[in-house]
């Protein structure tokens, strides 16, 4: 029975539903711009993670290490690009 039941898929489905509901909450409860954006940012990143691991099977093949290294590298570049841009264009701009 354990082999037949797609546990990962169902979990992934539930996670993505919950994350979507939380993101929807930003509009339903009319959160302020700042809190709303924070909630959206966090849920978006988690959503991407759920998709990658649960549905796109990252980490289920032999080259698990290469895939995760690439993901971390990408995450690093994305964060550097966003926060670096904020630093040069907004925070550090005289």
């Amino acid at each position, binding site marked *: 029975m354990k082999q037949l039941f797609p546990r990962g898929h169902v979990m992934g489905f539930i996670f993505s539903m919950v994350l979507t509901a939380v993101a929807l909450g930003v509009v339903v409860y009319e959160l302020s711009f700042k809190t709303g954006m924070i909630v959206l940012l966090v849920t978006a990143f988690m959503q991407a993670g759920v998709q990658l691991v649960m549905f796109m099977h990252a980490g289920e093949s032999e*080259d698990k290490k*290469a895939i995760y290294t*690439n993901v971390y*590298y*990408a995450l*690093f*570049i994305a964060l*550097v*690009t966003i926060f*670096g*841009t904020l*630093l*040069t*264009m907004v925070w*550090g*701009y*005289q």
Partner: protein
Amino acid sequence: MDYFDRFAVPHSSPMIVGSQIAIAVTVLAILVGVTYFKKWGYLWREWFTTVDHKRIGIMYILAALLMLFRGGADAILMRAQTAIPDNGLLDGQHYNEIFTTHGVVMILFMAMPFIIGLMNIVTPLQIGARDVAFPRLNAVSFWLFFWGAMLFNISFVVGGSPDAGWTAYFPLASVEFSESVGMNYYAIAIQIAGIGTLMTGINFIVTILKMRAPGMTLMKMPMFTWSILITNLIIVFAFPVLTVALALMTMDRLFGTNFFTMANGGSDMLWANLFWIWGHPEVYIVILPAFGIYSEIISTFARRNLYGYKSMVVSMVAISVLSFVVWAHHFFTMGHGAMVNGIFSITTMAIAVPTGIKIFNWLFTLWRGKIEFTVPMLYSLAFIPIFTIGGVTGVMLAMASADYQYHNTMFLVAHFHYVLIPGTVFAVLAGFTYWWPKIFNFQLSERIGKWAFWFIVVGFNVTFFPMFITGLDGQARRMYTYSEATGYGPLNLLSFVGALGLLIGFAFLVYNIYWSTRYAPRNITSDPWNARSLEWATHSPVPEYNFAIVPEVDSSQAFWDSKNNGPALFKGKYKEIHMPNNSGVPFVLGIIFFVWGFAMVFSMWIFAIISTLGIFACMAHRSFEKDHGHHISVEEIEETEKKLRGANA
């Protein structure tokens, strides 16, 4: 007549009319020539539709050489214009167009395709693979690059060239200040070529991660393959930023949005920011493969193992990470606070550390080696001191406070040519000479090659060294003329003389190709340099399937080991080989993209919509196509192998 006015070049001159006629005549001559000699079928079957990585590589290099001469012509004109004070050879607008296209052509349509060409030819061979992971996608990459480059190149005879610098800073690049279609060409042609490059990036990462010969772990890959893996990783993470920035630019220019304008909440600085987020990693995209090429050549001709393999790999990974955290040093003077400039100063200087490690590794590889001064080796040896000068001046520029002095002067121009020419041009010339016999089964003449080398290396220094001095004296870059009282005259004249030296060097290069093709001996072995990595283990020219038997590997220089009583590379018997089929769709797709781009540049929406549909039709065709490739039978392999062994015996 109004409608057709926009196709005319806004600032026409006799030189441009001459080019228009020359281009028309050349295109006509090619069409007539190919038809007369009945070569259309051959070209279509063997080249336009090919998915073979070696042929795609050759086409990349051919296109890159053409672009080298296009960009070189621009360079000679620039040096000629500034050779004497108050020169009237070019007017200001023409000069602007020429330095803009020189930059774009040299970086995006010469350096990039030359490197991608070499990596197409060499990487699959070095890892013992039969082709790249996605051969059809590889052909799409090439044709997108090629037609993108062609679109960019017709700009100077149809509608006017881009004129806002290769950096295309806003607000100068906006419709308000660059009225002609020139900057539309920039946005769209680079976009098309850039999509092709992004596909190449994905293709080669997958190829290197998934298709290595049995036994070749990551830490047993040849250094060139390592450099290509890192390069493609940077491509995949940097190019999407350019894609987005160019898309925003296109919308600003064609549809009146305000992303980079000074009004309605737009920010012109955002363009500079996005451009350099891509632009700085781009510098490493064109330089890291060079590090790989030099590593191969130095260890081959010093007859020694590469010193410090692990530290080479680690420093390349470090460079790739650092390349993404330094971009703001390109606009230190645009008004950031001391904190931002301080941070980016430090990250920039940090790059000197891994680069220095690599320089020392090459020196230690040479140490006590039996050095053989072949042409590829000469370029590699010239690279080390010249690149070091480029690197040291880079650290000078990295100091934000000092940069206020150097910024936008010829000192900067001298610096980046001292990095890019030894770092990229010398490398691709060295790699081109080194791998030539693998592709064509004869060597380029060493004698003519040395003439070319000396003219290029001396000409280069005579051209660019004076710029350090005029730059420190205050000569601004991109200045189309100057008065005699400034005193820049003599050194600029010297620069022009150097540029002529470079021209002679490149003429020798072309003559060498011609001479060697006609007269070079054909009875060489498949390993003429006594080299180390797997590409030399197969026949020259390389058969379609690369290796009759997939090699088994247990070190980073498996071929060298097997030549010196190590374990045999090829074990087992011939088996049927599965290869991909040729396809004309990538070529057609490239032409449709060209038409689409042209329609977008001139805002001809009906053509743009029709060609967009055509692009989707090509993709749909691929989705529903059933193409399982073809098989090469054991008998066929035996026959080919016998024939090739005969040629190399």
